[in-house]
């Protein structure tokens, strides 16, 4: 059972390709809808039996909708801890879903751009994820799934509040549009705070993943709409798009600054040192990998010759995570072995 799910996944992650608009700054775009089914209590207040009934109905609807062709479906209670962690790293399930002990399931389309969580905080969480800056396409993809399933399942909805969700922060459109942006230069120039502040009135939030250091892990920030009630889906998506366009401009300026004569040598030195760590290290924590990959990624975008391509770097950002390394090794690697396996893996990819 264990190997079966993991072997379904291809090595290459479509949504992490260096494709789409502005791939050198926008890593990926994601749109998710939170939906509940009329007549069932929300999962957090459902008996296991009622969760199982909801799951059965949701899976039936997914099947007859034909929205997820050649998809893979998995009941969380049948998965090993490693498989769950792998799915979290692959961004198909949340930590919440992995930790839940009821009747949870996930359905993943064969190209991995569309997936659905069943019985997370809401009955359904539908997600579309694409590489680069692709808000429109992503919204289209997620909306098609949302409306297709909505014809087969009666969503909990009222004309006053819109779609009804377990958490009031999702009430209304139940929609979250987010872009993962790579902002190494803004962060280094200390201009990220002001940049985000200037965008605060636009109704977006930024989240970063802290490692143990000062920098947000890999200088990757997730920018998403902070509210989802009171305006239309397109308006919320447009506000995220506008903010991303601004951040792209800020980041480009900050990168240009790093290449001015006074700083150029220092910048190139940092980038090449990072490249050297990636190909020379014998022990590499994920954090150290992300920090150096971030600099290398910026260097590539600046046109520095690093004998490396951005697509490989992007793929490694996902593949060098602990559960992915364990999956590659065919066994659950203990923490002490992972840094060694990661260094080996990264070296093998860099040739």
């Amino acid at each position, binding site marked *: 059972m264990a190997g079966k799910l993991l072997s379904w996944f291809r090595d290459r992650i479509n949504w992490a390709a260096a494709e789409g608009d502005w791939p050198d700054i926008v890593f990926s775009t994601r749109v998710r809808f939170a939906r509940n089914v009329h007549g069932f209590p*929300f999962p957090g207040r459902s008996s296991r039996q009622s969760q199982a009934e909801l799951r059965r109905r949701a899976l039936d609807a997914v099947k007859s909708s034909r929205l997820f062709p050649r998809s893979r479906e998995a009941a969380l209670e049948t998965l090993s801890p490693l498989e769950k962690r792998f799915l979290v790293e692959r961004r198909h399930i949340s930590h919440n879903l992995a930790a839940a002990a009821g009747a949870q399931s996930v359905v993943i389309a064969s190209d991995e751009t569309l997936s659905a969580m069943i019985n997370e905080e809401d009955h359904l969480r539908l997600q579309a994820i694409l590489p680069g800056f692709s808000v429109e396409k992503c919204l289209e993809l997620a909306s098609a799934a949302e409306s297709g399933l*909505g014809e087969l399942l009666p*969503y909990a*909805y009222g004309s*006053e509040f819109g779609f009804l969700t377990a958490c009031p922060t999702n*009430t209304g459109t139940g929609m979250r549009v987010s872009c993962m942006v790579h902002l190494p230069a803004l962060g280094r120039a200390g201009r990220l705070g002001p940049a985000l502040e200037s965008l*605060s009135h636009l109704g977006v939030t930024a989240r970063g993943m802290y490692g143990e250091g000062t920098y947000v892990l890999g200088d990757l920030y997730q920018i998403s709409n902070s509210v989802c*009630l*009171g305006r239309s*889906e397109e308006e919320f998506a447009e506000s995220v798009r506008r903010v991303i366009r601004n951040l792209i401009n800020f980041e480009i300026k900050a990168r240009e600054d790093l290449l001015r004569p006074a700083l150029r040598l220092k910048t190139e030195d940092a980038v090449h040192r990072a490249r050297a760590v990636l190909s020379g290290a014998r022990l590499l924590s994920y954090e150290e990998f992300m920090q150096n990959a971030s600099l290398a990624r910026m260097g590539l975008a600046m046109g520095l010759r690093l004998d490396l391509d951005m697509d490989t770097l992007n793929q490694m950002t996902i593949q060098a995570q602990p559960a992915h390394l364990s999956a590659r090794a065919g066994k659950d690697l203990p923490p002490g072995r992972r840094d060694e396996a990661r260094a080996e893996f990264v070296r093998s990819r860099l040739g």
Partner: protein
Amino acid sequence: MICQDCRKAQATVFLKAAVNNKVTEMHLCAACALKRSERHAGEHEPHGLGPMGGFVKELLPSERKPLACGECGLKYAEFRESGRLGCPSCYRYFGAQLRELLTRIHGSCSYSGRRYRDNLSVLSERERGEKLEALRAALRAAVAREDFEAAARLRDAVKELDDGR
């Protein structure tokens, strides 16, 4: 959304911190996020990170008399604690409080997204309640004048609307 540290500025930074394998979420304004990241750099564990529930609690109006959802039984006090509703009908039973909360979270409490299905489920809970009340009154009147055919029809209509909730 308001910053959970200073409770004044608009929260623009949504941080997820992984500490000892536990993920904590924070909504902060840019200034407070910076303060936290400076603090964070020097120590291993950030302090005072409450769960989201506490955050919602401070935004929620308190109840004047004990309230509970007539459908799933969730008490309003429990909702204030957890920040999570129990079922779609909670939106009807806690309507007034939710209107206030949703306005504080989203800056609005009226939906203007895509419309879903033009049938019973499109009725807001308020509209549904009003319609139900009207049908029940008509049913009582039909029974009083011994018009049992009309009463049967009305009873079915009440049942359909009530079940469709």
